[in-house]
């Protein structure tokens, strides 16, 4: 990403808003090139980076889920409800809103404490893998998920999709492309749906529609392949862009003129990675690399 050259980078700076610091630059370039080194061959520094990634990533997700599920939904909600117990005008209970519906704070607290009980039942799986008591919260979760997805997606992915396919075949003052477009849209949809029909006898008509359906399907998969290439390469270019920004003279440690880039984080960590690869290649007996 473009590095704003507001101030020269400091050696170590924990302020997230400041210009990325040198120590951070070294760490970013080292880890990036360590992962890229896997393209040449599996090596110790890649394994280190990979396990560091799983460790740091798991910790991050744990913190976020803890903050969202436990802190926010339980602790803060219950705090708010307890405050509401006496927060009313005359010291009496002030209503707590659940989904816009006013509920007595006492009820709000008891309902949410039930969620605490269910969580404890779920934690029973830590003690015994298939603790039967943990099935209650699991059953509840699966019921809620299934109902939420079923209702929402039937409306959006079935009813609304049928409704929106009713386009006029020959729009009045439309260009040839538009008429062809609507024709392709409706007939294409009919043919691809026909292709995915399994329990009706496949006569001449259904077979013909299915053949056309496959052609439309392949054009769609082709576009997915084109977009997948676009996306993957965009990720690679961003990595190269970040490596380039930490290879700029502003991040050079020493030296002047032409040789400054030799002391930048990108070049130095690159040299380290090449060294590791050479050592790994020499120390490993010349076994043919399987399928590489």
């Amino acid at each position: 990403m473009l590095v704003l050259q507001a101030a020269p980078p400091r050696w170590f700076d924990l302020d997230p808003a400041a210009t990325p610091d040198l120590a951070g630059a070294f760490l970013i370039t080292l880890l990036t090139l360590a992962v890229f080194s896997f393209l040449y061959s599996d090596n110790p520094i890649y394994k280190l980076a990979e396990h560091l990634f799983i460790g740091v990533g798991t910790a991050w997700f744990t913190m976020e889920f803890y903050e969202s599920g436990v802190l926010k939904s339980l602790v803060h909600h219950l705090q708010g409800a307890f405050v509401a117990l006496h927060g009313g005008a005359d010291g009496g209970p002030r209503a707590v809103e659940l989904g816009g519906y006013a509920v007595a704070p006492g009820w709000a607290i008891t309902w949410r404490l039930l969620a605490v009980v269910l969580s404890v039942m779920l934690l029973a799986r830590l003690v015994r893998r298939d603790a039967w008591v943990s099935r209650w919260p699991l059953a509840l979760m699966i019921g809620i998920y299934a109902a939420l997805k079923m209702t929402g997606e039937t409306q959006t992915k079935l009813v609304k999709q049928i409704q929106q396919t009713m386009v006029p075949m020959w729009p009045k003052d439309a260009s040839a492309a538009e008429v062809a477009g609507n024709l392709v849209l409706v007939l294409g949809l009919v043919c691809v749906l026909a292709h995915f029909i399994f329990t009706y006898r496949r006569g001449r008509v259904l077979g013909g529609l299915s053949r056309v359906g496959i052609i439309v399907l392949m054009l769609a998969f082709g576009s997915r392949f084109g977009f997948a290439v676009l996306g993957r390469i965009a990720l690679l270019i961003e990595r190269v862009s970040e490596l380039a920004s930490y290879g700029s003279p502003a991040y050079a440690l020493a030296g002047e003129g032409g040789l400054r880039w030799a002391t930048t984080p990108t070049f130095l960590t690159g040299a380290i990675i090449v060294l590791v690869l050479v050592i790994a290649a020499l120390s490993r007996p010349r076994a043919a690399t399987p399928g590489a």
Partner: protein
Amino acid sequence: MKREIPILLTVICGLLVTVAFFAPAPDDARGIHPTVWQAINSELLAWATVLVAVAFLLGIANVVRINLRQVAARHPDRWYKVVLLVSMFAFLVIGLAEMHESDLPAPLLRMLVPADRITLQSGGEIEGWIMESTPVGLRVREGEALEERVIPHAEVASIVEPSLKLWIYFKIFAPLQATMFALLAFYVASATFRAFRARSLEATLLLVAGAVVMLGQVSLGNEWTGGVAGEVKDFLMNNFVKAAERAIVIGASFGVLATGLRIVLGLERSYLSE
């Protein structure tokens, strides 16, 4: 007891959420106020959020257990597993400390959480730990004995809140995850050259459509083909792809509908056996 109650719970919660979907939408103009259905729906969803988070924490216990067992079993990669566990717990401690900054005791706070720097309008600078931003001012703990004081908002010029948690996120987690996915650019290139063959009509159509889309997306493709690639790509996307994707979406909706119905009506047993 072990099977009937869970299935009963699934059916009850499933039906409640389903009915809440169809419940009347609050509409002040018509005088339709939120009903108990909105409350039930919101409370059940809150429960699900809590349980999803707790289930995730269970997953972590699994990861730790597997890695510890592998380290104990002198697995060849055990030193990497040690790195995994150490980096996980270290980052967890730092992150949780920063999350509970305001209720940490002094020694832990000083050790784990970097102090914030507040520059005042009067030019002075205070180093301490901001606890809360109340309408009156900033409640800060600073000085040797970490006594609390409130700095009115008017006096504050700027605040710098250093964070070791975000430093580790942007310098270790972000580059690693981004580069892991960037590897795929190389794998696509290699697979395209060595394995993507126009062996059948279907594969040929796929490769031709892919090439057209790739050219249509970028201005070079349009320059070489005089804008035709862009138009063909737009026609392809807005008609062929829209038709096929719509059929796929309609097809997928049956799968969700079928499993949803079986779960909500209590006919699905599979999740009880695992």
